[in-house]
């Protein structure tokens, strides 16, 4: 590996606060030419802030940042660009109906007086792609490519301008396991040209294949810099988590006598969920742990009847429901809430009351006419059951906090009598106090006999709330644990592992 001691980027004593939140405090970080550095940390550990500071999106409150020996004064994506920093974010920014070549040089097309030099554009694209051994036609339109190929075009675009530092933010999270190797070999080729690469990922197998060293962040600080040999799963998990105080609900543990609500055997969804079997029981909270791209959302959608399975079967209260559609699962009492509350969950401009009953207007109306007294009574009951903080059921839902909005979204499922609740990331974007209330709500629902499936990327909250936890990695089940025989660390180690293929 042509790694040298020449520093490409050097961050020293950097701190950054957003309002009352200390995102980074006193961070020192450096990376050398040709080095591939894996960057890990829980949500909110400060990874994104560090990346944004390196990319010039954010300006540090204190501390200095030097790229190639030159200090970057103030924020500025363009000045960071000029110093050779390129970032590939998770969401792709390609234009689907334009060709690979046009996207590669977006906005900077070679031209004479505004007339495109098409042959030069295609030639230069061809050259760039073949440099990295990519077998993609420059003339293909982006919409014809697979997600992995699109990701590679995005990376090729970033490196076509010969950067000295390339930042990749979870580049494999949307890829199936077979496609990951393509990205890895490309990253390797790039680093061999002397480009320093910061690789944000939590897939340990990937990190072992390409990284030279590992930086773990925690609570806005660098928790450890490890060599790749030192970076064992348990070491990383310990460093990521730090000291935890784990207070568990006392009644946790699978209870005998619980009935099977859903029985899933060997289902497959595209290449995102592979041969998953599980049991969902009434009266308990089943946690599903998995990193970004582990297939947790795809699994939940298949259970809810929102997507088709290509193999295996799902039985809900004994009745086969796979590929029967949402209507059938809904009738059997399967409730589902999406991880994207804002776009899939709430009707922002309507009141709490309407948001609560919108899945079952029949219960508050007769012959299609809404009975306002019944609507008020029903929504007031739900509001008090769920402990939603509001002055009136008529308040527009957009004026509630994230945690209260989430309770409304769950309440909507309760209103239509759901007995199996599939909740995808219900605590995302919710403050700590509201999280605790949602945990209590989930326990209460289980106690009253509902089956609750709780998907979360924050593994420590599963350790707090779930009776059983199933760990997904690359679409396969890599472990199932019963309370009290697990803690955050055991779950995290399991989630970072790759399944045997």
């Amino acid at each position, binding site marked *: 590996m042509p790694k040298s001691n020449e520093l490409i980027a050097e961050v020293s004593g950097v701190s950054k606060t957003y309002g009352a939140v200390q995102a980074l405090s006193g961070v020192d970080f450096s990376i050398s030419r040709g080095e591939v550095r894996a960057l890990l940390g829980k949500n909110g550990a400060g990874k994104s802030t560090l990346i944004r500071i390196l990319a010039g999106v954010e300006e540090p409150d204190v501390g200095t940042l030097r790229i190639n020996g030159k200090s970057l004064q103030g924020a500025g994506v363009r000045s960071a660009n000029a110093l050779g920093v390129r970032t590939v974010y998770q969401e792709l*920014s*390609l*234009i*689907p*109906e*334009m060709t690979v070549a*046009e996207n590669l040089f*977006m*906005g*900077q*097309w070679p*031209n004479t007086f*505004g*007339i*495109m030099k*098409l042959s030069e554009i295609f030639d230069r694209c061809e050259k760039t792609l073949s440099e990295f051994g990519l*077998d993609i*036609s*420059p*003339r*293909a*339109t982006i*919409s*014809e*490519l*697979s*997600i*992995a190929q699109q990701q590679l075009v995005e990376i090729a675009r970033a490196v076509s301008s010969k950067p000295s530092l390339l930042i990749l933010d979870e580049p494999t999270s949307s890829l*199936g396991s077979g496609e990951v190797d393509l990205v890895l070999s490309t990253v390797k080729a790039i680093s061999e040209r002397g480009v320093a690469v910061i690789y944000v990922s939590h897939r340990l197998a990937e990190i072992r294949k390409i990284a030279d060293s590992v930086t773990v962040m925690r609570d806005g600080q660098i928790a450890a810099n490890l060599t790749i040999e030192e970076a064992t799963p348990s070491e990383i998990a310990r460093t990521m988590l730090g000291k935890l105080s784990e207070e568990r609900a006392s009644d946790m543990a699978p209870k005998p006598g619980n009935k099977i609500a859903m029985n899933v055997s060997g289902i497959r969804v*595209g*290449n995102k969920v592979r041969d998953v079997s599980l049991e969902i029981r009434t009266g308990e909270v089943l946690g599903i742990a998995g990193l970004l791209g582990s297939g947790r959302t795809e699994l939940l959608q298949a259970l809810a009847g929102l997507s088709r399975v290509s193999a295996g079967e799902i039985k809900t209260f004994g009745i086969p429901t796979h590929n029967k559609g949402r209507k059938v699962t809904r009738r059997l009492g399967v409730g589902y809430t999406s991880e994207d509350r804002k776009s899939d969950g709430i009707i922002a401009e309507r009141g709490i009351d309407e948001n609560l009953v919108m899945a079952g207007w029949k219960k508050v109306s007769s012959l299609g006419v809404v009975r306002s007294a019944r609507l008020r009574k029903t929504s007031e009951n739900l509001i008090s059951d769920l402990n939603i903080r509001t002055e009136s059921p008529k308040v527009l839902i957009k004026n509630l906090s994230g945690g209260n909005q989430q309770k409304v979204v769950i309440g909507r499922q309760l209103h239509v009598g759901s007995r199996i609740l599939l909740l995808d990331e219900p605590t995302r974007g919710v403050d700590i106090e509201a999280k605790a209330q949602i945990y209590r709500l989930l326990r209460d629902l289980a106690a009253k006999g509902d089956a609750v499936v709780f998907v979360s990327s924050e593994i420590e909250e599963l350790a707090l709330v779930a009776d059983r936890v199933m760990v997904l990695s690359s679409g396969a089940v890599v472990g199932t644990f019963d309370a009290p025989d697990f803690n955050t660390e055991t779950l995290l180690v399991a989630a970072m592992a790759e399944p045997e293929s």
Partner: protein
Amino acid sequence: MALNAKVGAVASLRGFVRQRVNEVGLLVALLALILLLSTQSENFFTPRNFSAILLDAALVGIVAWAATLVIITGEIDLSVGPAVAFWGVTLADLVTNFKVPFGLAVAIVLVGGAACGALAGWLRARFDVPTFISTLGLWSAFRGLAYFFTGAMPISIEMNPFLSALVGRVFGIPVPAILMFLLFFIFYFITNKTTFGRAVFAVGGNPKAAELGGINVTFTRVAVFAISGLMSAFLGIMVAARLSSGSPGAAQGLEFSVIAAVVIGGTLLLGGKGTMTGTLLGVLFVTVIGNGLVLLGVNSFLQDVIRGGLIVGAVLLNLIVARRSNNSGVAKAK
């Protein structure tokens, strides 16, 4: 390497066919329509009727080329019909009543047209005013002003060599049709071969990514509307020549025919996708249908009903085809 090239060639051929599905389908539909009408009406397949069709097509096409650019950026220009009437009236008013030299009057009309279009584009780019609203406003204002200035009576305009040329023929082909094809090639070149044309696609496909790539999104939005306004003004001059007057009621419903032609041609109303060739076929399709309905003696009110059904049907077909090819794309990725 040779294998790579071969794989690439196959992929791009498949891509070509998939992208052209709509155009190939439309061409087949157009030929079938021509065949059908030829058997149904003996007056259809005649040089005289074809020349009439081309003349009608020119009135739609010249504005439709610019509208294609507008719609590819994800916007809409509803003001074209009234704009044509207003600028025709303005030309006649300037020349006949204000005795402005003809050349200067033409310049004022063209610059004015571009400026009014640019205003709608600027309101969109600067203040996020939806162009559906700003051009709906222009639609009402242009028609109102055209009637106000003329007192609802056409203003006659004295024919001169320039205006006569616009209604003339070369080798039996109406000059407007020749101009339509000439402008088609210019617009085809702009969309496919210039950085501006590609910027139009980028802005329509993902404005944020375009901005990050260094494309001037504001300029692009203002420019496409300026071009649309310019083409409407130019068509206004042509219509004035044809009627040898500025008529406030001219080009009724033109915006409908233009948007129908562009959409039938496969351009996505959401932006980011569309072709000039598609619009050319769409223009011919809409015009041939209109011509055929007249020849077959269909009640003129019913003609509107048929046109209305046609545009909805065409969009429905487009969406079904798009969904199919999308699904196959996903299947391929998996």
